[in-house]
C-alpha cells in the first residue's frame, strides 16, 4: 500500500499563497499526471510531496503514513528532475548507488541493485562513464535508474522529458510507460505537455493557479470536462470556443453567421450569454460562397490538415480535416457538425452546463 493522499494541502511563500487547499487521492500503483500551464503550482505540489518544499498547512500521507513533517529521504520517494541533476563528479554507477550508500547499505548489495536497475534501462555499457560523456537521453535514463535503485514506494517525475528533443521525448515516453508496467509502483508525473499527460496517465490532475480544476482519467477529461479551462487544455488542437446567446432552448452563434445550435443541456434563460465549445475533430468544412467564414491558413500534416478559419466576430476556429477534402485558402465555407458534440459553458463562471 503506497498510495498518496493530500488533505487540504496549502503552500504559502510569505503572504503569497500558491497552493490553495488541495485534496487529492492517488491510488497504489497508479500513474498520476499533474498537468497545467506554467506557474500553476504543479511542480510546487510535487516538491511538497517529495518534501523539498515545506507544507504550510494540511496533511500529506504516503501509504497511509503521515509524512507532512518527515524528511525527504524517509518518505520512500525518489525524484527525477527536469535537468537530470546527476552528480557530475561521479560515474553512472556511483550516481545510481549514491542513495543506497548514504543509507549505509553494504557495497555488494548496492552493486547488485545498481546492476539490476542498469539492466532494466539498458545502461550496462555506460556504467563507468561520467554524466558529461552521455547524451541527453542517456542522462535521463541514468536519472531514472538512480530513482529505481532506491526502490521507492512512489516515483516523482518533474517534467523529465522537457530537455529532450522531440523524437527522443516520444521514445522516453514509451520507456517510462513500460517502466511503470514493469515496476508497478505509484508514479506522479508533472508536465505542461497535455500529449504526455494523455498518453501516460491513469489519472490526470489539471491544475490552474494552485487549484485543482478537475481529476479524472484521460478520456474522462477529454469527453466530459467540467469547465472551459479543462476543455481547452486537454485535446490537441485545442477546443474552439465561441460566444453565443440563448434563444428559446437553442444558442445563437454570431461567429457562425447567427446559426442556431440545438442544446441538449439545461440552458439559462433567453438572452443569457453562453460559450460554445467545439472540438476541431468534430467539425467539417462545406464550401459555401454565401458564408461569411473564410479559410485563412491550412496546415497540411499529411494524414490530416488543420484549417484556420476567420469568422465575422473575429473568433478563430480550427478544423481538423482528413484526407484530400481540403478547401483552398480564401475560400468561403460553412461548418457542419453534430450538435450533440457541442459543449456549453457559462460565460461568466466558465462552468460546464449539463
Amino acid at each position, binding site marked *: 500500500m503506497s498510495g498518496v493522499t493530500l488533505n487540504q494541502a496549502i503552500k504559502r511563500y510569505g503572504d503569497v499563497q500558491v497552493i490553495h487547499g488541495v485534496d487529492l487521492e492517488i491510488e497504489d500503483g497508479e500513474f498520476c499526471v499533474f498537468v497545467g500551464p506554467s506557474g500553476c503550482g504543479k511542480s510546487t505540489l510535487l516538491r511538497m510531496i517529495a518534501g523539498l518544499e515545506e507544507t504550510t498547512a494540511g496533511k500529506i500521507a504516503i501509504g497511509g503514513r503521515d509524512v507532512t513533517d518527515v524528511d525527504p529521504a524517509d518518505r520512500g520517494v525518489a525524484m527525477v528532475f527536469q535537468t537530470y541533476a546527476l552528480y557530475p563528479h561521479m560515474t553512472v554507477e556511483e550516481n545510481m548507488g549514491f*542513495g543506497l550508500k548514504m543509507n549505509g547499505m553494504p557495497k555488494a548489495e548496492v552493486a547488485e541493485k545498481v546492476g539490476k536497475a542498469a539492466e532494466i534501462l539498458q545502461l550496462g555499457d555506460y556504467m563507468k562513464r561520467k554524466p558529461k560523456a552521455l547524451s541527453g537521453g542517456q542522462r535521463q535514463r541514468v536519472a531514472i535508474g538512480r530513482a529505481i535503485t532506491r526502490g521507492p514506494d512512489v516515483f516523482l517525475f518533474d517534467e523529465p522529458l522537457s530537455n529532450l528533443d522531440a523524437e527522443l521525448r516520444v521514445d522516453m515516453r514509451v520507456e517510462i510507460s513500460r517502466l511503470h508496467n514493469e515496476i508497478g509502483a505509484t508514479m506522479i508525473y508533472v508536465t505542461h505537455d497535455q500529449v504526455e499527460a494523455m498518453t501516460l496517465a491513469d489519472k490526470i490532475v489539471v491544475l490552474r493557479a494552485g487549484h485543482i480544476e478537475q481529476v479524472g482519467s484521460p478520456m474522462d477529461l477529454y469527453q466530459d470536462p467540467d469547465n472551459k479551462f479543462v476543455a481547452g487544455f486537454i485535446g490537441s488542437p485545442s477546443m474552439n470556443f465561441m460566444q453565443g446567446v440563448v434563444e428559446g432552448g437553442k444558442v445563437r452563434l454570431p461567429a457562425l453567421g447567427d446559426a442556431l445550435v440545438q442544446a441538449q443541456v439545461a440552458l439559462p434563460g433567453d438572452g443569457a450569454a453562453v460559450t460554445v465549445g467545439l472540438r476541431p475533430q468534430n467539425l467539417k468544412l462545406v464550401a459555401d460562397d454565401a458564408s461569411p467564414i473564410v479559410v485563412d491558413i491550412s496546415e497540411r500534416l499529411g494524414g490530416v490538415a488543420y484549417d484556420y478559419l476567420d469568422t465575422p466576430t473575429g473568433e478563430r476556429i480550427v478544423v481538423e480535416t482528413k484526407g484530400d477534402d481540403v478547401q483552398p485558402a480564401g475560400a468561403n465555407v460553412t461548418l457542419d457538425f453534430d450538435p450533440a458534440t457541442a459543449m456549453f459553458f457559462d460565460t461568466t463562471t466558465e462552468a460546464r452546463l449539463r
Partner: protein
Amino acid sequence: MHPALQGLITIIVGVSGCIGYFYFSNQFLDKVLFPARGPNIGRNINRANLVRPWLFLFPALLALGLYLAYPVVETLRLSLTERVAGGGYTFVGLDNYKQLAIEPKFWEAVRNNLFWLLIVPAASTVFGLLAAQLTDRIKWGNLAKSLIFMPMAISFVGAAVIWKLVYDARPMGQEQIGVLNAIYVALGGDEPMTWLTIPFWNNFFLMVVLVWIQTGFAMVILSAALRGIPEETIEAAIVDGANPFQIFFKIKLPQISGTIVVVWTTITLVVLKVFDIVFAMTNGQWETQVLANYMFDKLFRANDWGVGSASAMVIMLLVLPILVWNVHNARKEMR
C-alpha cells in the same frame, strides 16, 4: 605648479599618447604601408590585417619585455657575477649559490617559507570555504562577507601594523594595549609576552596576518563557485538521504574542486612572495626570515648583489611550477 594639475596633465598626455599611437600607427599601416587601393588592393588589405594585431600587442610586449623579461635575464647574470671594488664585475660561476647553500639564515628562510607554504594557503582556503558555506543562506550573510572581505583592501604593511598592535606588549602593571596580552593577562598569565620574539611560534603569529587577509579572497571566489552548483544536484542528494555534512563533502566539494585548486595555488603564489609582513613586523629577526626578505636584506642592505640575485632566482624557480599549474587550472575552469 599645483601637483593636482601636474597629475591631470600627465593623465591627459598619457591617454592621448595611447590614442595617438593606435590611431596614427593604423593610419600609417592602411594609408602608406599597405594602401587599400591600386592593383594589389586585396593583397594589401590581407597584409594590413596580418600586421594589425602586432600594432596592438607592441606596447604591452615592450613593457613586459622591459620590466619583466629583461630583469629576469639581468638577475640571472648578476647571480653569476661578483662586484669588484672600484666598479665592474667578474664572472664567478655558481659561487653565489654555493655561498647561499652554506648560510644558515638562508636555510632558515627556506624552512620558514615551507611552513608558510603549507599553512597559509590551507588555512585561508579552509576558512574561506567555511565562511562562504556558512554565510550562504542567512539574511546577514552579505554583511558578514563584507566584513571578512575587508582585510583584502588593507595593504600588507597596514595589516602588519595593525597586528603588531595586537601582539604589543607593555611592562607588567601598565595597561596592556595589545589585545592578545590583555586577554592573556586577564586569563591569569604571569607577565605579558613579547609574542613576536618567541622563536618558531612567532612564524605562526606572522602567518595569521596573511591568513586574515587571504581568507576574504578565498571566500569570495569559493562563494561564487558554491552558488554555481546546480541546486537540483543538492535536492537530489537530499532525496537520496544524504545529511548536510555528506552533501557538503560528497556533493558540493567535488563540484568546486577545480576552483579550490585555483584559489589554493593563487594564495600559494602570494605566500612565496611574502615580504612586507615579515619586513614590517620582525624584519626576519628571531628566526622568522623568509626568502623574499632575505633577498631584500642581501640586495639592499648588505649590498651583496650576487647572493641577493641568486636568492631571487631561487624564489623564481619555486614560484614557476606553481604558476604554470595555476594558469593551467584556471584555464580549465574557464572552459
